[in-house]
């Protein structure tokens, strides 16, 4: 009699989770993928993906998600819409507490991803959905001929600012330093775009308005000068924070909460692996997430083969 429900449980249905599911299904592991909302993760809100190999013209993030999901399902990967509330990793057979039941599995791949980080300034929560946004593809079209601010300086901020110029007549890119971090090609496009004005060395200190966003308060980090900039919207792309609420202290994490895993994607607990954005990794891309996932499944397979219960 089997003492557990699945060989492998994958937590999260973004690119890492779906790839892990694909590999695990092909390895004929009895696998369950648990996704909290809907498959896709952060690429769902990515307007256009042009650095994932095999798609020379690029494709919409949502389209890539659909393709990854279809591919995993073709090999009969079960995907359940459910939330992981907590993990008990104290025994070789791990307990995964879901919203409606508890399931048992010897191996787990955590691919729960990350979420956009909030700035933590007054007005940010109050105006969410009323001008404050974390998603250009969702909300950009509501700012036709309007003036918007975009906050950040990495790939997402710079690429999405470019996207916003399809709608907005002006995009102020607010960046805390005097140079951008984004990939050079993205920087070149942004600098060449007449609708984008970069506000260097500046941070947002407040988002203000009556019912909707009307202005943002800026502070120049070099001069200390404070100014008010009238805008209709404020898009925030200042980085990500790992989705690990369910984790507690079950596995070791770094100072920022990302799960520590080695080159085999092994965490501090045998049989538990991490893949994708939730891992402490030097680069967070779709291409790196799918690579992590393939390695994680291979490691899990070895672990399961050698497991004596």
């Amino acid at each position: 009699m089997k003492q557990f429900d699945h060989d492998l449980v994958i937590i999260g249905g973004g690119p890492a989770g779906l790839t892990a599911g694909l590999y695990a299904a092909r390895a004929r592991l009895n696998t369950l993928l648990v996704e909290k909302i809907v498959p896709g993760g952060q690429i769902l809100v990515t307007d256009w993906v042009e650095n994932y190999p095999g798609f020379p013209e690029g494709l919409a993030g949502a389209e890539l998600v659909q393709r990854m999901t279809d591919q995993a399902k073709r090999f009969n990967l079960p995907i359940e819409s459910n939330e992981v509330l907590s993990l008990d990793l104290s025994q070789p057979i791990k307990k995964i507490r879901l919203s409606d039941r508890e399931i048992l599995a010897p191996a787990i791949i955590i691919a729960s991803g990350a979420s956009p980080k909030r700035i933590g300034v007054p007005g940010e929560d109050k105006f969410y959905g009323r001008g404050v946004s974390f998603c250009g593809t969702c909300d950009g079209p509501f700012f036709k001929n309007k003036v918007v601010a975009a906050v950040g300086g990495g790939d997402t901020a710079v690429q999405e600012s470019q996207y916003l110029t399809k709608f907005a007549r002006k995009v102020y890119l607010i960046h805390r330093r005097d140079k951008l971090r984004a990939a050079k090609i993205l920087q070149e496009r942004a600098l060449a775009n007449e609708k984008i004005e970069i506000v260097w060395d500046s941070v947002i200190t407040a988002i203000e308005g009556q019912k909707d966003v009307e202005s943002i308060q800026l502070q120049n980090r070099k001069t200390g000068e404070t100014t008010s900039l009238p805008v209709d919207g404020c898009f925030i792309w200042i980085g990500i924070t790992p989705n690990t609420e369910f984790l507690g202290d079950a596995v070791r994490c770094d100072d920022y909460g990302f799960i520590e895993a080695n080159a085999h994607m092994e965490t501090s607990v045998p049989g538990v692996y991490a893949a994708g954005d939730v891992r402490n990794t030097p680069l967070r891309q779709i291409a790196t997430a799918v690579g992590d996932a393939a390695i994680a499944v291979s490691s899990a397979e070895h672990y399961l083969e050698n497991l004596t219960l």
Partner: protein
Amino acid sequence: MADGIIEIDDSHFEADVIKAQQPVLVDFWAPWCGPCRAMAPVLEELHGSFGDRIKIMKCNVDDNPVTPAKFEIKSIPTLIFFKNGKVFEQVIGITTKSKLEDTLKKML
């Protein structure tokens, strides 16, 4: 329920939502919105499980400018729950099926 979710337009909003006998959930969406498309199967499932007890409808914000403006929608997907013609709750962005279920049950 065999039928899918019905699209609603500006001209029928009053009759189909505000004056509806039962509670209504309206999904404001657009074809260009990836998260909206991803939410669609979840709403279809809820539509299937709640049947006639709760009306679930969707409103394309590109084709229907009046209604989204009236509810000051600036972000999609936005889901608005209506009970007796009044806004019962509003959810912005993608959200879990279980949270939507909880709100739908509260409206019954």
